[in-house]
């Protein structure tokens, strides 16, 4: 039986958070700031997905942007070539990205450690360059243009076209992030989540306890890919165009930096880390051209001052992890 008082305080806390998120565009309708938040929340979606792969299962993945790209292009291509509306396009985008995760995992999980990192990195580059070079379908380096924005029927208001407004996307991403975060919390507490963590801690021991390591790793990649696919479809719908440049290696490492900042394996940490790192470049905008310089310094300092991340919930395990030297 869960502790009732605990559940109630959790419910109250979440309700306050949800209300604040809902009220924000009414209190502060500045479209620029809403856009920054929307982008940060999209990052949060990606961070939640990558957290399943890297944070929970302990598989270092450096090509995560590829799944985001696959989701964005899946919806974009379905929409541009077949006229598929956004709400119907999200599911295929997510499924295709998830399947790609599994398909990549089958060969890639045969290699281990740092070599796995480079295989996933190679995969990320291959996907990006492939989208660049398939000019007949994807528009090549110029990108896929003219993707429809989502349309939604609202009671009493008729059909609302999201268009280039900021608030609808903000709400859309808020809802998506909340749902995905909920799923991730449930997942990480489930049998599957416990098995993932067991694999992260000690793969050999986990497999001796009868955990099907390869299947679970593939499942993590599939789930992570599927989440990135959803984020990709939303991104494509919001931008109206997708260009291969949006999905470079830097995006993959940024998302990785977000979950490390938040604390590996923590769902809360992934969201907070993404919001912090996602909005930091905008907060530093006052420093103009020194912005990215300071951003780099901030990343270095952060790792030095708080190596376990903001919500390093698994401190015991992190200290047990093999350091890369002594002293």
């Amino acid at each position, binding site marked *: 039986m869960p502790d009732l008082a605990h559940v109630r305080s959790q419910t109250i806390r979440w309700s306050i958070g949800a209300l604040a998120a809902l009220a924000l565009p009414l209190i502060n309708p500045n479209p620029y700031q809403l856009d920054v938040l929307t982008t940060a929340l999209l990052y949060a979606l990606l961070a939640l997905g990558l957290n399943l792969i890297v944070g929970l299962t302990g*598989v270092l993945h450096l090509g995560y942007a590829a799944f985001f790209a696959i989701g964005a292009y899946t919806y974009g291509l379905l929409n541009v070539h077949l006229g598929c509306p956004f709400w119907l396009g999200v599911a295929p985008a997510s499924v295709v990205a998830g399947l790609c995760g599994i398909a990549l995992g089958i060969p890639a999980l045969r290699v281990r450690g740092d070599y796995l990192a480079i295989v996933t990195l190679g995969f990320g580059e291959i996907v990006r360059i492939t989208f660049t070079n398939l000019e007949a379908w994807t528009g090549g380096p110029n990108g896929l243009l003219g993707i429809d924005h989502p349309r939604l029927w609202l009671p009493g208001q008729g059909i609302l076209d999201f268009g280039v407004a900021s608030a609808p996307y903000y709400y859309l991403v808020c809802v998506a992030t909340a749902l995905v975060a909920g799923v991730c919390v449930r997942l990480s507490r489930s049998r599957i989540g416990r098995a993932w963590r067991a694999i992260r801690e000690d793969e050999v021991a986990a497999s001796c306890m009868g955990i099907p390591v390869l299947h679970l790793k593939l499942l993590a990649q599939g789930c992570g890919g599927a989440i990135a696919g959803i984020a990709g479809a939303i991104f494509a719908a919001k931008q109206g165009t997708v260009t291969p440049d949006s999905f470079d290696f830097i995006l993959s490492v940024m998302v990785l930096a977000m979950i490390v900042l938040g604390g590996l394996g923590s769902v809360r940490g992934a969201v907070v880390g993404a919001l912090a790192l996602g909005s930091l470049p905008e907060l530093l905008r006052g420093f103009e051209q020194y912005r990215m310089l300071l951003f780099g310094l901030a990343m270095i300092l952060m790792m030095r001052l708080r190596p376990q991340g903001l919500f390093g919930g698994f401190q015991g395990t992190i200290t047990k992890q093999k350091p890369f030297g002594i002293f």
Partner: protein
Amino acid sequence: MTPLQLFLQQLANGLTLGAIYALIALGYTMIYGVIQLINFAHGEVFMVGAYAALTIVLLASSAPWWALLPACALAAMTACGVVGAAMERFAYRPIRQAPRLNALITAIGMSFFLQNAIMLLYGATDRQFPNPIPPVRWDIGGVTVTLMQVVIWLTGGSVMIGLQLLVMSTRLGMAMRATAQDLRACALLGIPVNRIIATTFMIGSALAAIGGMLFGLHYGTINFHDGYLVGLKAFTAAVLGGIGNIPGAMVGGVVLGLLEGLGAGYLSSQWKNVFAFVVLVILLLFKPTGLLGERVADRA
């Protein structure tokens, strides 16, 4: 051009590229060898080297080319050596105890920092890299070889031989190899491991600096973004040869350069970057430790 001549020509071009990749790959592999760190900022060090060389070329453009090039190399090596050692001292050493992912994030922060520092100093646009080497070219049985290519081959070759001598037959090299094998035992035996690690960073960065100079000479323009893709490819080369293994990095660099040269010549040059990665992925699937490599750490 007969098919054989075409092949030899692509071989010559690939070898030029390969020498540059190999020089950068050496830094990745040496640093990985001693502390199992993928120094993602290494590509940026290479770029800093290219800019340092550019500065000397611009300052002393009237000097004869055979005097200018060593001066350039020296300046670039010094600049990058300092950057490398400072990076180790202030960014990596304090977190050597932390999980390895943290070092990766630090490296990425470092790479943002260096890129933007160079952008602020030299501007964001492409910079012309004036080529002081006279445009001499020879025609050997239908294959064109330029003086510059010869300079790149000779520089790359002699640096690699020098490094091999340093690592295999000096006290410093012995200490480096010992540190790579077992850091803790070395510390117990009184080897100043911190100094050895800093020196490794310095040497690796100096090699990348030479790579940067040759890159500038070869392509004629440099940009503060160049470190990213070239660094990624050099890292691929290091993995191709087996990361942590010095001869492996040389072999991997040359193999990658040749693959790219031949791939660009026979297939489409659009796909040449994919080609490099596809080969890498396939190789790792069949030989998961690279061409000459050993086992690596399992944990992320």
